[in-house]
């Protein structure tokens, strides 16, 4: 049976922002729809309205011509709308089966049979009796999908489903979604990743600042056209000029080893590399191959042998991050809200945390608030952070703005070396572009970057030299022009 879902004139207003401005859309089963937009474009609000989590101020939703009143997630479920949230809605300490039975009215045995048949049909293999916290992100997502499938949904909504998945898991997911679509489930796929839209979807609706900008078929679009619609302006394609070959060595790592006591961490083995002034060294790899350990060793969160790290002719391997900052190193860790900034603290307080010697942030143990605020305002305007309220708690900044703030905080001291780890993870196109431009600018100022990233495109765009980390070992360092993404892929898989 065909399913027709119609959103008609939906508006949702929050104090100070119109999240959805008179949005009307129509979907039919048999196709996979993409809902595309930057962070904060209103796509998440729209799908939360469809799943009953948020109640719209105005507008109607029709499923097969029936007007739906979705006042709670329960109503959406009853009307056969299934939703897989970006942040999983699972109970970590309960077993997989308990997670699935909790919103089902079926008996244990019949439910178990049903789950088994679903898993068999779509080639999922998950142990139903282990607690969810032991599952990988991909498996957790499958549990969420099974939870929806149990109810034989007419509509399945996926909110940014690939942000936590590996490449392998992503392609598995796409196969499953195509299968669901063939079976008549209407699929709405929310993302800001253009590649995925091109790969998976049949039609695409683009949202920007709460408004629906365009609806079109994928075959009439390409990545550039979608990116422009999404951002609302023609994006400059950034290209890095080839760096002047400098032979002035800035940092040199010799025979660095790190053995962890935690079985879930990766040991680093015999790391050797050097970076010259004005150069960007990219370190590629599949996540979990020692990147976070390498970052911690380089930033001083993990102390190593004094002689392992030579920076500007000083041996600094045994210094902590604060002391390394005095030597003009700067760091941008992967997890913006846990490692780089303290979510509950205000913007200017977070700025004060990077208390470099010349800052005068503190006088005789007292906080020099005016100085810090002045400094924070400079960062906000220099680095295009989209807020004018430095009293805002940093958890309320979007990922892009927070990353700009962090990079700004690090760069305003004009360091010689910036070490960053997945700086554009989870950001939208506009913010990614801005961060990339900034990083290129740093190199142009004859300063250096170590860029640890899992995004191959990013590495190829920004690096002068590239190496691949696999199981705690670095491959040989290659010139970026000689490298292709295929070659990197092979090295990331562990081949020589």
């Amino acid at each position: 049976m065909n399913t027709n879902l119609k959103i008609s004139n939906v508006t949702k207003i929050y104090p100070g922002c119109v999240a959805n401005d008179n949005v009307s859309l129509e979907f039919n089963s048999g196709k996979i729809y993409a809902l595309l937009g930057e962070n904060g474009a209103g796509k998440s609000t729209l799908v939360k309205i469809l799943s009953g989590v948020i109640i719209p101020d105005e507008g109607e939703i029709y499923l097969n011509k029936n007007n739906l009143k979705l006042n709670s997630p329960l109503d959406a479920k009853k009307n056969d709308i299934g939703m897989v949230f970006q942040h999983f809605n699972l109970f970590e300490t309960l077993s997989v089966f308990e997670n699935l039975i909790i919103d089902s009215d079926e008996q244990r045995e019949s439910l178990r049979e049903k789950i088994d048949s679903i898993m068999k049909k779509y080639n999922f293999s998950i142990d139903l009796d282990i607690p969810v916290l032991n599952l990988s992100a991909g498996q957790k997502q499958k549990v969420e999908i099974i939870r929806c499938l149990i109810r034989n949904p007419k509509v399945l909504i996926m909110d940014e489903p690939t942000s936590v998945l590996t490449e392998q898991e992503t392609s598995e997911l796409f196969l499953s979604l195509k299968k669901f679509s063939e079976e008549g489930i209407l699929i709405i796929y929310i993302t800001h990743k253009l590649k995925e839209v091109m790969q998976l979807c049949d039609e695409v609706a683009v949202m920007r600042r709460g408004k629906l900008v365009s609806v079109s078929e994928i075959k009439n679009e390409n990545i550039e056209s979608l990116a422009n619609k999404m951002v609302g302006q023609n994006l400059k394609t950034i290209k890095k000029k080839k760096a002047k070959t400098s032979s002035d060595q800035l940092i040199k790592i010799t025979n660095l080893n790190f053995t962890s006591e935690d079985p879930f961490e990766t040991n680093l083995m015999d790391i050797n590399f050097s970076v010259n002034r004005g150069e960007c060294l990219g370190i590629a790899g599949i996540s979990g191959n020692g990147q976070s350990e390498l970052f911690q060793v380089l930033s001083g969160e993990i102390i190593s042998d004094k002689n392992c790290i030579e920076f500007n002719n000083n041996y600094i391997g045994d210094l902590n991050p604060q002391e390394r900052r005095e030597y003009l190193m700067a760091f941008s860790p992967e997890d913006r809200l846990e490692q780089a900034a303290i979510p509950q603290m205000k913007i200017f307080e977070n700025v004060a945390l990077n208390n470099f010697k010349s800052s005068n942030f503190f006088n005789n143990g007292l906080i020099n608030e005016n100085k810090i605020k002045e400094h924070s305002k400079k960062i906000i305007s220099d680095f295009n952070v989209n807020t004018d309220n430095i009293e805002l708690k940093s958890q309320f900044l979007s990922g892009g703005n927070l990353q700009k703030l962090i990079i700004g905080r690090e760069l305003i001291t004009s360091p010689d070396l910036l070490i960053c780890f997945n700086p554009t993870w989870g950001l939208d196109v506009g913010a990614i572009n801005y961060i990339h431009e900034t990083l290129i600018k740093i190199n142009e100022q004859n300063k250096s970057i170590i860029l640890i990233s899992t995004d191959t495109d990013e590495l190829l765009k920004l690096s002068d030299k590239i190496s691949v980390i696999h199981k705690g070992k670095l491959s040989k360092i290659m010139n970026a022009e000689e490298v292709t993404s295929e070659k990197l892929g092979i090295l990331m898989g562990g081949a020589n």
Partner: protein
Amino acid sequence: MIIDINFIGLIIASIMASAVPLILASCGELITERSGVLNLGVEGMMIIGAISGFALMTVTGSLIIAIFGAMLAGVLISSIFAFLTQTLITNHVATGLALTIFGIGISAMIGKNFVGIPGKEFPILFESLKDTIPLIGPILFGHSIVFYFAFALPFMTNYFLKKTKIGLIVRAVGDSPVSASNQGIKVRLVRYLCILYGGAMSGLAGAYLSMIYTPQWIENMTGGRGWIALALVVFSTWNPIKILIGAMIFGGLTIIQFHMQAIGVRIPVQFLTALPYIVTIIVLVVISRDSRKIRLSTPSSLGKSFHKDN
């Protein structure tokens, strides 16, 4: 010295009797905490139960009214906590502490008129069977209905949490209120009910103290048992069966150290009095030291307020 085998039976029975209020209050608090709510008001709810039970018994003369009245009093005082923490989103710790202070104060005020009044005899069950089996007889028979209920409660609680749908919902709410809410579970309602249930069990524990264990009203008669009950919940890692073990060890050492003091063992009294607290905690820490199991049974959202619109 000849030790009468029935005497040992009586000692064990008295140990079990002293464990009863701990088991009742802990099992109640366990349900509250499993739903993610940390109610530090157990001591206050217990003492309200104790004075309400005793007062109702004296005034009405009905034991049934007194027991259920004490439970109702526990429900009422915990409903203050529930309203504050769930509807007005106040801090759990501060509100719970306030509840205890409030309970102790108000019970002393009401209790003024009841000091020195003798209690009533509470009916005991299976008294005739007490002497039929040596050792076992005095342990199993001749106790109040509340006693039997208390020893069944940990097993019922375990069954409830592990095997029933509602138990699963309680655990789910404690694990992640946001996910539960997105699944259409009424988080606030579940938490309200769990708090009120905890209040009822604390009230019953208090009534047991003032009506059955030492049938009279003494100011501050719970004497910190509410805090021990709270500690048992945490150190048992939210496991009702371990609560039973912990309560028995605590009760046992309390009774034994009394006897040791009476015999005149040459150990400082302060040490003997402290012994039950120390040993109970050590034993519970040792039997629950598996960090994986702790992670699995600790309610992740414990003590955190839940706002619906986030």
